[in-house]
């Protein structure tokens, strides 16, 4: 059941990606709306898959790589649906393929519970991981908004005024989306770190500075801080700096994850 639902969601994400890409290539105006609607259907099925997983295994899909990727993809989808409020649907051009990749990886890796006996199961843990995932979803949306902002800015400044100019949203729309995504992501990731440290300090009397998850979380937190700093600093071009910081920040966080993942000791529960 879970596999069928997530496969259906993946199929819809691929269709939505195709609709958006075709619309971008052909300069279509209805594409973003249609693509977002198809993706929304995918997000609904994705949510149903996660609910089915929880019901089936009596466990939230927050532990293990495949369930985590599936949850992260779903949260990015929820962010994407919220972007329709700001008229920034074309960000789906970046976000929907990311959602498709995450859902596809979850399927390939096998959406099964890890079976590991985690000492820290419970509401505390659920809040901690969920808050962290919302933070990473916010980071991804900020990256998408920032990337589109930089491309649109380049198009406008370079007077090319072609496909990107027509298809991408206005600069303030992308900036607003990036700003809110960073704000939400920063707040939730901070909460996630505090909850995690609260638990380790209380039960293990340590801040666990060597834990790969903590390292990754702290680096992500600094990436968010840099994005906020880029906006606060200086006068002219603050929006562009913030967009650039979002793209660099996201790239750094992904690279750090890959490095940590490759260097982590066997048997660790790091994602």
């Amino acid at each position, binding site marked *: 059941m879970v596999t069928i639902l997530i496969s259906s969601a993946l199929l819809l994400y691929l269709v939505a990606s195709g609709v958006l890409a075709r619309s971008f290539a052909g*300069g279509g105006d209805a594409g973003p709306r249609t693509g977002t609607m198809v993706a929304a259907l995918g997000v609904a099925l994705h949510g149903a898959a996660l609910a089915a997983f929880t019901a089936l295994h009596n466990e939230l899909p927050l532990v293990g790589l495949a369930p985590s990727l599936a949850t992260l993809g779903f949260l990015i989808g929820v962010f994407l649906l919220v972007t329709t409020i700001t008229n920034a649907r074309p960000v789906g051009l970046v976000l929907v393929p990311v959602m498709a990749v995450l859902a596809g990886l979850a399927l390939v890796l096998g959406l099964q519970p890890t079976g590991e006996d985690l000492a820290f199961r419970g509401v505390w843990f659920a809040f901690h991981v969920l808050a962290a995932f919302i933070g990473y979803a916010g980071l991804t949306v900020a990256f998408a908004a920032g990337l589109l902002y930089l491309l649109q800015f380049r198009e406008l400044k370079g007077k090319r005024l072609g496909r990107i100019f027509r298809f991408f949203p*206005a600069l303030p729309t992308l900036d607003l989306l990036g700003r809110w995504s960073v704000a939400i992501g920063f707040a939730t990731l901070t909460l996630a770190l505090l909850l995690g440290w609260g638990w380790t300090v209380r039960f293990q009397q340590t801040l666990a500075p060597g834990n790969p998850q903590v390292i990754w979380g702290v680096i992500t937190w600094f990436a968010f801080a840099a994005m906020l700093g880029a906006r606060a600093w200086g006068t*002219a071009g603050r929006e562009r700096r913030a967009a650039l910081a979002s793209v660099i920040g996201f790239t750094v966080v992904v690279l750090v994850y890959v490095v940590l993942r490759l260097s982590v000791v066997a048997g660790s529960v790091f994602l």
Partner: protein
Amino acid sequence: MSLAIVGISHRTAPLEVRERFVVDAEQSAQAMRRLASTGCGEAVLLSTCNRTELYMRVAEDHPDAADLAARFLSDHARMAEHDADRYLYTLHDEAAVEHLFRVVASLDSLVIGEAQIQGQVKTAYERATTTDGGFSVGPVLARMFESALRVGGRVRHETRLGTGAASIPSAAMELARKIFGNLKGRRALVLGAGEMSELTVECLRSEGVQQVLVSNRTAARAGEVAARLGATAVPFERMAATLGDVDIVVSATAAPHPVITDAVIAQARVAERKRPLLILDIALPRDVEPEVGAQPNVFLYDIDDLSQVVEGTLERRRSEVSIAEGIIRDGVRDFWQWYRGRNVVPTIRDLRGWAEQVRDAETRRALQSLQHLSAKDQGQVEALTRQLLAKVLHGPTTRLREAAADGRDAHVLEVARYLFGLDDKARNGAGSATERRHDTT
């Protein structure tokens, strides 16, 4: 009755000729009354800056009605007949219908896909329906215009023919929206007080720009334009200081040298501002030094850049023409089937009337010899004959409508009327259908 169009448009005449043919709203009512006396059964007059066209339904016994309409237009333009004939065109029947559909869908416009024409046609049609109680629009032109407007709406919704900026001012506004999002609450400075500047001020106002400032070397001229368009005049000497406070600058002066230079930008302390500055240089020769565009928060566009946006839009619109033409073809076909189908309506009515009379008479006679049947059974006999008649007539009725749609109606109608003796019956007073043979919607 047949359909006809007599008109003049940007395709056949230059502006100086077209403007002589323009008929305003007041003249339009008088024109309708005059046309009624020329044999026009129905007429709608469409007059815009790009076309003046008379859409008519004329009686068969008035074959010269289109000529009379052409004379009416040439008289109105105070132009000799043979001169006017060089520019006027006449279209009949299906070609006339297709022309109207193309006009409404904006395929016949000077700028393909422009939005105004649909409203202009609607206004012309509504004006014709209200002229002296709407005598000028009957069921055929009403259906033709309503179908055309519906098809025009479909073209706008189902194609990208109406999207994008297709003029220099609209391209400028599109650029501004991409940089600032909503233009409400923004401030703009317009340099120059010529025709282009006035047009730009109007565009900015319609986009909701909060304050528009107008500056010109001749202060009086700036004051005049500002007063007329609800803007504020600013002395030209204060231009640099004002530049620092506005979001959009539109420069359209006739100056032979750049008005906005690097020095002016430095004086306006543009580099220190947090908001971007959009400069639209629509003057020839250019008013703004190209180096100004190198400032990080300055977006500078000249007339060539704006033309690039317009050309991109027109190219996309041209690629949609074939889709629009498909929609128009469907619309014309539907209308034409309905229009031709009207020719068979009197014959179908006569046929059904005659058959019903036969059925009624025969059923009455039969029921008189079936008095022993209960009222319920008699009702069933009555119902049976009705069903039988409906089934028998369904085939011929359908064939007649098909023949009309295929354009074979004249011959088929003659045969049908002969076979069923409909004309004899009409002559003998067996049915009054022939007298009722009038327009039916």
